[in-house]
């Protein structure tokens, strides 16, 4: 009896691991003003399929400076897929209404990174997902520097609009 129960549990685990569906966040990220004539709505699954993930490890200043590894890609690489020629900036809007214009040169200069996943899993909205924009840096960022860079730290990314 004991062996039978053990076998059932193992099978369940194997079944779960093989057949279980990966739970992607429901929300989508909308890209407007790009090379496509109409807005493009990307799911997290689409983002995952884009290319092999990059990763960065930073002390997250908005989560008690805990050392966290984020997975995603550099914005300049991703935006080039959709960017119109000679765009000047991108306007990023969050679910909570926060809006910021990021100039093109700052995207390159600050090496902005768009993350959709960390070691705990996909970033859900209550964990600043479905995507968040990070400016990578070394060590614990001091509050003065965060004042300068923090404006580009957009969480709960909802839309990305190219501005010419």
């Amino acid at each position: 009896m004991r062996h039978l129960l053990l076998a059932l549990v193992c099978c369940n685990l194997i079944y779960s691991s093989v057949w279980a569906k990966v739970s992607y966040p429901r929300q989508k990220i909308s890209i407007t003003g790009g090379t496509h004539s109409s807005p493009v709505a990307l799911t997290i699954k689409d983002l995952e399929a884009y290319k092999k993930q990059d990763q960065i490890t930073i002390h997250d200043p908005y989560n008690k400076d805990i050392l966290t590894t984020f997975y995603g890609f550099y914005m300049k690489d991703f935006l080039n897929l959709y960017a119109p020629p000679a765009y000047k900036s991108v306007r990023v809007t969050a679910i909570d209404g926060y809006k910021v214009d990021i100039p093109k040169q700052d995207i390159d200069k600050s090496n902005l990174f768009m993350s959709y996943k960390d070691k705990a899993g996909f970033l859900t909205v209550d964990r600043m997902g479905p995507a968040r924009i990070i400016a990578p840096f070394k060590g614990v960022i001091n509050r003065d520097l965060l004042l300068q860079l923090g404006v580009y730290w957009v969480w709960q990314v909802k839309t990305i609009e190219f501005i010419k």
Partner: protein
Amino acid sequence: MFSFKEWNRSSVITDIFVNLLMTILFVIVISLSFRSTNDNAAIQDDTFKNHFQSRLILKSINGLNNSRNEILMAIQEKNPELINNAEDQMLGAISNYHILLSEQTIGKSIRPSLDFEKDFKNLKVLFEEVFAKENVLEDTELLLKISRSAEELVALMYTEESTLWAKESIKLHAYSEVKQTNLYFFYGLTICFLLIQIVFVYFTIIKYRLNKKINHQHERLVLQTRLSTLGMMSAELAHEINSPLMVIDGRLRILSNEINSVPNINEKLIKNIDIIKRNSKRIQDIIKSFKTMSKSGENDIFEPLEISLLFEEVKDLISQKIASSQIEFTIDESHSDVIIAVRRVQIVQVLTNLINNSIDAIKDSANPWIKIKTEVFENNVQIIVTDSGSGIDSLHVANIFDPFYSTKGSAEGTGLGLSISKKIMKEHGGSLSYNEACPNTQFILTLISKKRPVTEDGPTTY
């Protein structure tokens, strides 16, 4: 308290003391300013943190309100998609709330936020219940419950935010006080700095003046040493030179007489004798000048002398030189009966020196003349010596009475004549001056008149 003179003398000590005092004051003000600035910066830092936390609370509130609106619109329009938006807004509110907690932990915030985690978890559970149903709009009561819960949570969060601002306003008041203090410190620093500069400049000026005085006195010391040495040497030198000079002079006279008695003598020979005579006389004059320098004159007595007699004696001394130079020499005899109190030899020496200078200056000019005139005033008598020269160059006027200063070549002038003359006149209670206003070269000897007779001790009054 130091007097000004004492302050000058002990200026080094005062300098160190004042500088030390100002430095200590400066350091104190700097330290207090630094502390005040630090307080200021701490308050500003805190203010920013509170602003950020306040913003996060408001963003959370905003998310909850948007969530409620989406729910109500979904019910009204029967649009299930809007329930997804409502959940997104609620999750966004949770996200901002978590960031707030993170900020408060790191920043060691004054006031930790109330525990809203339980309320947010309740909302999440309620939404899960909604999404568990086949039709999300099916249970309107559940949706309205979510809306009410969100509304209650919003009220709590508004209270939290208001409390944060109440604390903030107290800090802002403290900040403005610190700002005012900072301004006072700034004024204090500026005043300290200006005072230090003034003190520094003041002592630099004093130092400069002292150095100048020292240099001037050093030069005078050197000069006086030279004069003193010269004076000491002169008596001995005069004696050493005088002896052979007397022999030369005597033998010259004999030689001259013998040559003059020879008929058809070579003119060149006579001329050479004359040259030797003149130079011998010149050596005698120089010796006399040195003797005068070495003499203090304090043993000679002042005696009354009629001016006419003075002029007679002077004429005797200079007549030959005047004649050989073919200079028109006139003495105004008016007031010549005036009596002056003088040391006879010295006053003759002064007048002779002035006339000799004039002769040397104008002898090669056209129509040379020398005039001597007397003017009588209530308290003094002036003897004015004027020659046909056009005056002394303004460049030299300031220095003509300085010892060893001479406009003649080194072969002719010792540079001592006028300085000795001035010294003699001073001892007489009078003066020797050069009249710049006169178009010609004019010297004025001022002597005490006979109303103030002089004794051995100098000029006195009745």
